[in-house]
């Protein structure tokens, strides 16, 4: 009988400990969350710097062939050594004189190779407007920057 109560007591103790540990793991930010935040901030900062230095207006009239090496270098120099990324610039123009509809003119990108599909990818996106003297020469861009750890691992 003593053994029985001893077992129950020990199990309850283990159960309480396990529940407590589970509760802590739920309520505290995990390393994974920290890494996601780090990647997101990296993508956002890269986008802001490339905007400030005129990268996205420079590529506006480039072909995909011309833009790729330029975007490659611009992005790579901003990323920390353990992070890879890809920048994609979709250039749109108005389809009609009221600019009610839009046509995808060009898709430009600078790309590092995503080595494994298991990498966690973070995304930052922004819109840019380049108004022209008429609807025919007004352009808009949707810029997307993806970032991930190059070793598939952690910061």
């Amino acid at each position, binding site marked *: 009988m003593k053994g*029985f109560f001893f077992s129950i007591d020990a*199990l309850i103790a283990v159960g309480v400990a396990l*529940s407590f540990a589970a509760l802590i793991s739920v309520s505290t930010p995990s390393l994974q969350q920290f890494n996601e935040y780090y990647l997101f901030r990296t993508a956002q900062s890269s986008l802001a710097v490339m905007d400030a230095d005129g990268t996205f207006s420079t590529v506006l009239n480039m072909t995909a062939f011309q833009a790729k090496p330029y975007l490659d270098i611009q992005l790579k120099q901003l990323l920390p050594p353990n992070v890879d990324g890809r920048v994609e610039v979709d250039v749109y123009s108005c389809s009609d004189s009221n600019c009610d509809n*839009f046509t995808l003119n060009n898709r430009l990108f600078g790309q590092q190779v995503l080595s494994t599909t298991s990498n966690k990818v973070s995304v930052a996106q*922004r819109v840019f407007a380049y*108004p022209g003297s008429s*609807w025919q020469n*007004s352009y*808009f861009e949707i810029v997307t920057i993806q970032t991930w750890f190059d070793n598939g691992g952690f910061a």
Partner: protein
Amino acid sequence: MKGVVFTLLTFMLFLFLFELVASLARSGSSIITPQEINKRLVNVFSNIAENIPSVVQVNITKNQGNLTISDVLPPTINISSSLQAFQNFINFSTPSDLNISFLNPSMQVVPITGLNPPFQILPFNINYTYPSNNWGKTQQLVYCPNASTCNNFSIHLNYIINQTFQCNPQNASNCTGVNSDGSNEFSWNPQPDNCAGGPPCINFTLSITDNQGHTYSCPNSLPGTVPCPFNSTSLSGNAATLQIAILQSSVCKFKFTLGGNIANAPLLQMRMLDNNNNTCGLVLSNTTFSFNTSSFYVSLPTYLRVLDLNSNTSKTDFIFK
């Protein structure tokens, strides 16, 4: 035997509870939290707000205590059409569960074309604007709420015009003509008083370059050039006024006014007009305000609201930078 069974059952119960808590923790990442909704709203809000200046052909940059507003007067684009096209693109590129709207200061929904100047520099209440607060941009106007505010910053002005000066200011010997109105090619009337009567005053630098690359600047006392020995002017009495004659045009003038009594008049007024008050040239301007603090921002008097239709939460704020 009962004890063993009971012990095992209890153990399995705890394992089940543990797995339940752990799976809840794992699935937590797929639930959209209020923070994630807020992050999304802020992202879309700043996406729109940061584009507004370029859509109205203005560029605003801040560098510590310096605020530079780059402008094109008059605009080379139709700004109403440009704003409308931008809103159409925002609607095109924004997910359908987000609603974007612009509100006037009374919080009534207005079309994006109802978004008007002035650019308000806050907390100083300095207004950078144009006549009738519209995007026609026939003149550049800066209003200051009171002399004591204006006394606390300096202003640096760079203008590039698409016309040619009547004479090259870097060769003063050629600039001795007198126009029919009695003014010279580069004529101050009245002149800035260099704060002769003491504060309140506005400190300034000024540079105007024509399409030949000739520059008239203040302060400047270089030998052989048209002099401009001024770097400040009082905020009382008559405003200092500069008039520059344009080549082969008896009616087109570059006019610039600064300082004087600012109670009912702008601190700064720049225009390039003919006798009929029509614009007669294009001016690219860079206006830098140098404050003794970096705690300021620029805002348009229109609210932008981004509403998440799923959660019915929104971010509403002035369009600012």
